[in-house]
Protein backbone atom coordinates (compact mmCIF):
# COMPACT_ATOMS: atom_id res chain seq x y z
CA UNK A 1 0.00 0.00 0.00
CA UNK A 2 1.39 3.40 -0.89
CA UNK A 3 2.11 5.83 1.93
CA UNK A 4 -0.39 8.60 2.55
CA UNK A 5 2.41 11.16 2.86
CA UNK A 6 5.93 10.76 1.46
CA UNK A 7 9.07 12.83 1.89
CA UNK A 8 10.99 12.57 -1.38
CA UNK A 9 14.68 13.31 -0.86
CA UNK A 10 16.50 14.93 -3.79
CA UNK A 11 19.87 15.48 -2.12
CA UNK A 12 21.66 14.05 0.93
CA UNK A 13 19.92 15.22 4.11
CA UNK A 14 22.16 16.20 7.05
CA UNK A 15 21.78 14.34 10.35
CA UNK A 16 21.56 16.07 13.74
CA UNK A 17 20.29 19.24 12.14
CA UNK A 18 17.92 21.86 13.56
CA UNK A 19 14.64 21.66 11.65
CA UNK A 20 12.72 24.88 11.22
CA UNK A 21 9.06 24.79 10.13
CA UNK A 22 7.56 27.60 8.09
CA UNK A 23 3.96 26.62 7.51
CA UNK A 24 0.98 28.83 6.67
CA UNK A 25 -0.79 29.88 9.87
CA UNK A 26 -2.04 33.12 11.45
CA UNK A 27 -0.46 36.21 9.90
CA UNK A 28 1.69 33.87 7.76
CA UNK A 29 4.36 34.60 10.37
CA UNK A 30 6.23 31.29 10.06
CA UNK A 31 5.99 31.21 6.29
CA UNK A 32 7.31 34.77 5.86
CA UNK A 33 10.05 34.27 8.48
CA UNK A 34 11.25 30.93 7.09
CA UNK A 35 11.14 32.15 3.52
CA UNK A 36 13.36 35.08 4.55
CA UNK A 37 15.80 32.76 6.36
CA UNK A 38 15.99 30.44 3.33
CA UNK A 39 16.88 33.40 1.10
CA UNK A 40 19.33 34.96 3.58
CA UNK A 41 21.19 31.70 4.23
CA UNK A 42 21.02 30.66 0.55
CA UNK A 43 19.47 27.31 1.45
CA UNK A 44 18.73 24.91 -1.41
CA UNK A 45 15.95 22.37 -1.90
CA UNK A 46 16.88 18.94 -0.57
CA UNK A 47 13.47 17.23 -0.43
CA UNK A 48 9.76 17.75 -0.92
CA UNK A 49 6.55 16.37 0.51
CA UNK A 50 4.23 14.41 -1.74
CA UNK A 51 0.69 13.45 -0.77
CA UNK A 52 -2.70 12.95 -2.37
CA UNK A 53 -4.07 15.01 0.51
CA UNK A 54 -2.24 18.12 -0.68
CA UNK A 55 -3.72 20.40 -3.37
CA UNK A 56 -3.10 19.47 -7.02
CA UNK A 57 -0.77 22.37 -7.64
CA UNK A 58 2.82 23.05 -8.55
CA UNK A 59 4.56 26.35 -7.91
CA UNK A 60 6.46 27.77 -10.87
CA UNK A 61 9.73 29.53 -10.19
CA UNK A 62 11.49 30.90 -13.27
CA UNK A 63 9.47 28.55 -15.39
CA UNK A 64 10.24 25.36 -13.47
CA UNK A 65 7.69 23.38 -11.42
CA UNK A 66 8.14 22.74 -7.69
CA UNK A 67 6.05 21.04 -5.02
CA UNK A 68 4.35 23.59 -2.76
CA UNK A 69 5.64 21.91 0.40
CA UNK A 70 9.42 21.72 0.16
CA UNK A 71 12.36 21.10 2.45
CA UNK A 72 15.51 23.19 2.23
CA UNK A 73 18.92 22.66 3.77
CA UNK A 74 22.24 24.33 4.39
CA UNK A 75 24.78 22.83 6.78
CA UNK A 76 23.16 22.14 10.13
CA UNK A 77 19.85 23.81 9.33
CA UNK A 78 16.86 22.29 7.56
CA UNK A 79 13.72 24.30 6.80
CA UNK A 80 10.28 23.16 5.67
CA UNK A 81 8.27 25.70 3.72
CA UNK A 82 4.78 25.49 2.29
CA UNK A 83 3.97 28.08 -0.34
CA UNK A 84 0.32 26.99 -0.44
CA UNK A 85 -2.20 26.64 2.36
CA UNK A 86 -2.26 23.11 3.78
CA UNK A 87 -5.80 21.68 3.71
CA UNK A 88 -7.18 21.10 7.22
CA UNK A 89 -7.72 17.41 6.49
CA UNK A 90 -4.05 16.99 5.49
CA UNK A 91 -2.56 18.74 8.51
CA UNK A 92 -2.47 15.72 10.86
CA UNK A 93 -0.89 13.17 8.48
CA UNK A 94 1.55 15.72 7.04
CA UNK A 95 2.71 16.95 10.46
CA UNK A 96 3.04 13.36 11.72
CA UNK A 97 5.19 12.53 8.69
CA UNK A 98 7.39 15.61 9.12
CA UNK A 99 8.01 14.70 12.76
CA UNK A 100 8.72 11.02 11.93
CA UNK A 101 11.08 12.10 9.16
CA UNK A 102 12.85 14.52 11.48
CA UNK A 103 13.27 11.77 14.06
CA UNK A 104 14.71 9.44 11.40
CA UNK A 105 17.24 12.17 10.62
CA UNK A 106 18.15 12.47 14.32
CA UNK A 107 17.13 16.10 14.50
CA UNK A 108 18.59 17.89 17.49
CA UNK A 109 15.81 20.48 17.67
CA UNK A 110 12.56 21.25 15.87
CA UNK A 111 11.61 24.91 15.78
CA UNK A 112 8.17 26.16 14.76
CA UNK A 113 7.80 29.86 14.13
CA UNK A 114 4.31 31.29 14.10
CA UNK A 115 1.93 33.86 15.43
CA UNK A 116 -0.31 34.44 18.42
CA UNK A 117 -3.27 36.45 17.15
CA UNK A 118 -4.00 39.53 19.23
CA UNK A 119 -6.79 42.08 19.00
CA UNK A 120 -5.69 45.61 18.11
CA UNK A 121 -2.39 44.32 16.74
CA UNK A 122 -2.04 47.60 14.79
CA UNK A 123 -1.76 49.47 18.11
CA UNK A 124 1.32 47.51 19.22
CA UNK A 125 4.57 49.39 18.75
CA UNK A 126 6.69 46.36 19.60
CA UNK A 127 5.77 42.75 19.11
CA UNK A 128 6.29 40.28 21.92
CA UNK A 129 7.38 36.70 21.14
CA UNK A 130 6.19 33.84 23.34
CA UNK A 131 7.79 30.44 23.61
CA UNK A 132 6.51 26.92 24.12
CA UNK A 133 8.54 23.74 24.41
CA UNK A 134 8.16 19.97 24.35
CA UNK A 135 10.02 19.42 27.65
CA UNK A 136 10.81 21.30 30.90
CA UNK A 137 14.52 21.65 30.16
CA UNK A 138 13.81 23.48 26.90
CA UNK A 139 11.30 25.69 28.69
CA UNK A 140 14.10 26.72 31.05
CA UNK A 141 16.36 27.44 28.07
CA UNK A 142 13.67 29.67 26.56
CA UNK A 143 13.29 31.52 29.86
CA UNK A 144 17.07 31.90 30.19
CA UNK A 145 17.11 33.53 26.77
CA UNK A 146 14.51 36.03 27.95
CA UNK A 147 11.59 34.53 26.02
CA UNK A 148 8.28 34.66 27.88
CA UNK A 149 6.60 31.27 28.17
CA UNK A 150 3.15 30.66 26.76
CA UNK A 151 2.02 29.10 30.00
CA UNK A 152 -1.64 28.32 29.36
CA UNK A 153 -4.33 28.22 26.71
CA UNK A 154 -4.87 26.31 23.50
CA UNK A 155 -2.64 25.87 20.47
CA UNK A 156 -4.45 24.84 17.30
CA UNK A 157 -3.11 23.82 13.89
CA UNK A 158 0.15 22.55 12.40
CA UNK A 159 2.42 23.81 15.18
CA UNK A 160 0.19 22.38 17.88
CA UNK A 161 0.52 18.96 16.25
CA UNK A 162 4.28 19.23 15.76
CA UNK A 163 4.62 20.07 19.44
CA UNK A 164 2.40 17.15 20.48
CA UNK A 165 4.03 14.55 18.24
CA UNK A 166 7.51 15.73 19.30
CA UNK A 167 6.58 15.51 22.99
CA UNK A 168 5.25 11.96 22.42
CA UNK A 169 8.51 10.92 20.78
CA UNK A 170 10.88 12.83 23.09
CA UNK A 171 12.10 15.00 20.24
CA UNK A 172 13.28 18.40 21.51
CA UNK A 173 10.94 21.02 20.04
CA UNK A 174 10.16 24.66 20.62
CA UNK A 175 7.64 27.09 19.19
CA UNK A 176 8.37 30.81 18.85
CA UNK A 177 5.08 32.63 18.51
CA UNK A 178 5.00 36.36 17.82
CA UNK A 179 1.98 38.55 18.53
CA UNK A 180 0.38 38.99 15.12
CA UNK A 181 -2.67 39.72 13.03
CA UNK A 182 -4.98 36.75 12.60
CA UNK A 183 -5.82 37.06 8.94
CA UNK A 184 -3.46 39.74 7.61
CA UNK A 185 0.16 38.92 6.61
CA UNK A 186 2.48 40.21 9.31
CA UNK A 187 6.14 40.66 8.24
CA UNK A 188 6.89 42.68 11.42
CA UNK A 189 5.84 39.72 13.56
CA UNK A 190 7.97 37.48 11.33
CA UNK A 191 10.99 39.73 11.94
CA UNK A 192 10.39 39.57 15.71
CA UNK A 193 10.20 35.75 15.59
CA UNK A 194 13.45 35.58 13.58
CA UNK A 195 15.25 37.67 16.22
CA UNK A 196 14.30 35.14 18.90
CA UNK A 197 15.22 32.26 16.59
CA UNK A 198 18.68 33.85 16.23
CA UNK A 199 18.99 34.04 20.02
CA UNK A 200 18.10 30.37 20.36
CA UNK A 201 20.32 29.03 17.60
CA UNK A 202 23.16 31.54 17.46
CA UNK A 203 22.55 32.06 13.73
CA UNK A 204 22.83 35.69 12.65
CA UNK A 205 20.00 36.67 10.32
CA UNK A 206 19.56 40.23 9.14
CA UNK A 207 15.88 41.22 9.21
CA UNK A 208 16.28 44.77 7.90
CA UNK A 209 15.29 43.80 4.33
CA UNK A 210 12.26 41.94 5.63
CA UNK A 211 11.06 45.04 7.47
CA UNK A 212 11.88 47.30 4.49
CA UNK A 213 9.93 45.05 2.13
CA UNK A 214 7.02 44.70 4.55
CA UNK A 215 4.41 46.48 2.42
CA UNK A 216 5.42 44.57 -0.71
CA UNK A 217 5.26 41.25 1.17
CA UNK A 218 1.80 42.10 2.50
CA UNK A 219 0.62 42.76 -1.05
CA UNK A 220 2.10 39.54 -2.41
CA UNK A 221 0.84 37.40 0.46
CA UNK A 222 -2.87 38.32 0.19
CA UNK A 223 -3.98 35.27 -1.75
CA UNK A 224 -2.06 32.72 0.36
CA UNK A 225 -3.39 34.46 3.47
CA UNK A 226 -6.97 34.22 2.21
CA UNK A 227 -6.74 30.50 1.50
CA UNK A 228 -4.89 29.91 4.77
CA UNK A 229 -7.67 31.66 6.67
CA UNK A 230 -10.24 29.33 5.08
CA UNK A 231 -8.25 26.31 6.29
CA UNK A 232 -7.69 27.84 9.74
CA UNK A 233 -11.44 28.28 10.06
CA UNK A 234 -11.90 24.59 9.26
CA UNK A 235 -9.35 23.71 11.97
CA UNK A 236 -11.34 25.86 14.44
CA UNK A 237 -8.26 28.01 14.98
CA UNK A 238 -10.32 30.55 16.92
CA UNK A 239 -10.28 28.02 19.76
CA UNK A 240 -6.95 29.66 20.64
CA UNK A 241 -9.02 32.54 22.04
CA UNK A 242 -10.84 30.13 24.41
CA UNK A 243 -10.02 29.78 28.07
CA UNK A 244 -9.09 26.24 29.10
CA UNK A 245 -10.85 24.67 32.05
CA UNK A 246 -8.80 23.28 34.91
CA UNK A 247 -10.83 22.87 38.06
Amino acid at each position, binding site marked *: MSELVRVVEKKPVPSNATILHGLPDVGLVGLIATSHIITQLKMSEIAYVDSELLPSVVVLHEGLPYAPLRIFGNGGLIATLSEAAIPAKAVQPVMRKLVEWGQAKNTKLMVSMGGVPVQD*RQDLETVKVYGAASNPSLLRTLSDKGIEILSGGFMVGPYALIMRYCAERNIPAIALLAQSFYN*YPDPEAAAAAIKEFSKMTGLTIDVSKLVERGE*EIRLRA*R*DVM*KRTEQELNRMKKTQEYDLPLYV
Partner: protein
Amino acid sequence: MAENRRRRRSLFDLISDYVEDFEALSEEMERAFAERPSWDTRSCCIEPLCSVFVAADEVVVTADLPNTNPDTIKVEPVTKDLLEIRAEMKRKVSFEEFGITHRKGEFSFFRCQTRIPVAVDVKRMKTQFKRGILEVHLPRKKGYRIKVE
Protein backbone atom coordinates in the same frame (compact mmCIF):
# COMPACT_ATOMS: atom_id res chain seq x y z
CA MET B 1 -21.06 -3.98 14.58
CA ALA B 2 -21.17 -0.69 12.74
CA GLU B 3 -24.95 -0.98 12.80
CA ASN B 4 -24.88 -1.33 16.60
CA ARG B 5 -22.61 1.70 16.89
CA ARG B 6 -24.98 3.71 14.77
CA ARG B 7 -27.96 2.61 16.87
CA ARG B 8 -26.23 3.62 20.10
CA ARG B 9 -25.66 7.22 18.95
CA SER B 10 -27.75 9.76 20.78
CA LEU B 11 -30.11 12.25 19.22
CA PHE B 12 -27.66 15.02 20.18
CA ASP B 13 -24.87 13.32 18.19
CA LEU B 14 -27.13 13.11 15.15
CA ILE B 15 -28.16 16.77 15.46
CA SER B 16 -24.50 17.73 15.89
CA ASP B 17 -23.62 15.76 12.72
CA TYR B 18 -26.39 17.49 10.77
CA VAL B 19 -25.25 20.92 11.99
CA GLU B 20 -21.64 20.14 11.00
CA ASP B 21 -22.74 18.90 7.55
CA PHE B 22 -24.85 22.00 7.08
CA GLU B 23 -22.00 24.28 8.13
CA ALA B 24 -19.61 22.51 5.74
CA LEU B 25 -22.11 22.83 2.89
CA SER B 26 -22.79 26.52 3.49
CA GLU B 27 -19.04 27.14 3.76
CA GLU B 28 -18.48 25.38 0.42
CA MET B 29 -21.23 27.47 -1.19
CA GLU B 30 -19.78 30.65 0.23
CA ARG B 31 -16.38 29.66 -1.10
CA ALA B 32 -17.76 28.83 -4.54
CA PHE B 33 -19.14 32.38 -4.80
CA ALA B 34 -15.95 33.91 -3.40
CA GLU B 35 -13.62 32.03 -5.79
CA ARG B 36 -12.52 34.77 -8.14
CA PRO B 37 -9.26 36.64 -8.74
CA SER B 38 -8.36 39.19 -6.09
CA TRP B 39 -7.51 41.68 -8.84
CA ASP B 40 -9.18 43.33 -11.82
CA THR B 41 -6.94 44.60 -14.62
CA ARG B 42 -9.75 46.58 -16.29
CA SER B 43 -10.33 48.80 -13.27
CA CYS B 44 -6.65 48.56 -12.13
CA CYS B 45 -7.92 47.46 -8.71
CA ILE B 46 -6.65 44.96 -6.18
CA GLU B 47 -9.08 43.61 -3.62
CA PRO B 48 -7.64 44.05 -0.14
CA LEU B 49 -7.98 41.52 2.65
CA CYS B 50 -10.92 42.61 4.69
CA SER B 51 -12.86 41.35 7.71
CA VAL B 52 -16.00 42.19 9.65
CA PHE B 53 -16.38 41.79 13.39
CA VAL B 54 -19.79 42.18 15.02
CA ALA B 55 -19.57 43.32 18.64
CA ALA B 56 -22.41 44.10 21.03
CA ASP B 57 -22.34 47.85 20.36
CA GLU B 58 -20.67 48.17 17.00
CA VAL B 59 -19.53 46.53 13.81
CA VAL B 60 -15.81 46.84 13.12
CA VAL B 61 -14.65 46.48 9.53
CA THR B 62 -10.91 46.27 8.93
CA ALA B 63 -8.94 46.19 5.69
CA ASP B 64 -5.26 45.58 5.05
CA LEU B 65 -4.11 48.47 2.83
CA PRO B 66 -0.32 48.33 2.45
CA ASN B 67 1.33 50.82 0.08
CA THR B 68 -1.60 53.20 0.52
CA ASN B 69 -1.70 56.96 0.62
CA PRO B 70 -3.92 57.58 3.71
CA ASP B 71 -5.37 60.82 2.27
CA THR B 72 -7.00 58.89 -0.56
CA ILE B 73 -8.96 56.39 1.54
CA LYS B 74 -12.71 56.56 0.99
CA VAL B 75 -15.28 54.62 2.97
CA GLU B 76 -18.80 54.91 1.60
CA PRO B 77 -22.06 53.06 2.07
CA VAL B 78 -23.35 51.63 -1.23
CA THR B 79 -26.63 50.45 0.30
CA LYS B 80 -27.71 50.27 3.94
CA ASP B 81 -25.89 46.94 4.37
CA LEU B 82 -23.02 47.30 1.87
CA LEU B 83 -19.88 49.32 2.50
CA GLU B 84 -17.29 50.22 -0.12
CA ILE B 85 -13.65 50.86 0.72
CA ARG B 86 -11.44 52.48 -1.89
CA ALA B 87 -7.87 53.74 -1.66
CA GLU B 88 -5.12 54.86 -3.98
CA MET B 89 -1.73 53.17 -3.83
CA LYS B 90 1.41 55.21 -3.19
CA ARG B 91 2.91 53.64 -6.29
CA LYS B 92 1.55 51.40 -9.01
CA VAL B 93 2.31 47.69 -8.86
CA SER B 94 2.36 45.24 -11.73
CA PHE B 95 2.18 41.48 -12.21
CA GLU B 96 5.82 41.55 -13.26
CA GLU B 97 6.83 42.72 -9.78
CA PHE B 98 5.14 39.62 -8.38
CA GLY B 99 7.18 37.41 -10.73
CA ILE B 100 4.25 36.85 -13.13
CA THR B 101 5.11 37.45 -16.77
CA HIS B 102 2.22 35.71 -18.55
CA ARG B 103 -0.31 38.32 -17.36
CA LYS B 104 -0.15 42.02 -18.07
CA GLY B 105 -1.60 44.76 -15.95
CA GLU B 106 -0.88 47.49 -13.46
CA PHE B 107 -2.74 48.25 -10.28
CA SER B 108 -3.12 51.60 -8.64
CA PHE B 109 -6.17 51.17 -6.38
CA PHE B 110 -7.56 49.02 -3.62
CA ARG B 111 -11.28 48.45 -3.75
CA CYS B 112 -13.62 46.13 -1.91
CA GLN B 113 -17.26 45.93 -0.95
CA THR B 114 -18.22 44.26 2.26
CA ARG B 115 -21.62 43.30 3.60
CA ILE B 116 -22.64 44.50 7.07
CA PRO B 117 -24.67 41.74 8.69
CA VAL B 118 -26.63 43.87 11.20
CA ALA B 119 -28.26 47.31 11.12
CA VAL B 120 -25.76 50.13 11.73
CA ASP B 121 -25.82 53.90 11.98
CA VAL B 122 -23.57 54.95 9.09
CA LYS B 123 -23.81 58.65 10.02
CA ARG B 124 -21.89 57.92 13.24
CA MET B 125 -19.16 55.95 11.44
CA LYS B 126 -15.59 56.54 12.63
CA THR B 127 -12.40 55.51 10.84
CA GLN B 128 -8.74 55.25 11.69
CA PHE B 129 -5.69 54.15 9.70
CA LYS B 130 -2.68 52.75 11.47
CA ARG B 131 0.20 50.52 10.33
CA GLY B 132 -1.52 50.12 6.97
CA ILE B 133 -4.71 48.79 8.53
CA LEU B 134 -7.97 50.67 8.04
CA GLU B 135 -10.45 50.32 10.87
CA VAL B 136 -14.07 51.39 10.42
CA HIS B 137 -16.31 51.55 13.48
CA LEU B 138 -20.04 51.47 12.80
CA PRO B 139 -22.31 51.83 15.86
CA ARG B 140 -25.15 49.30 15.83
CA LYS B 141 -28.71 50.56 15.67
CA LYS B 142 -30.72 49.82 18.76
CA GLY B 143 -34.38 49.05 18.17
CA TYR B 144 -35.89 48.87 21.61
CA ARG B 145 -35.00 48.20 25.23
CA ILE B 146 -36.45 45.43 27.35
CA LYS B 147 -36.96 46.41 30.97
CA VAL B 148 -35.47 43.87 33.37
CA GLU B 149 -37.71 43.43 36.42
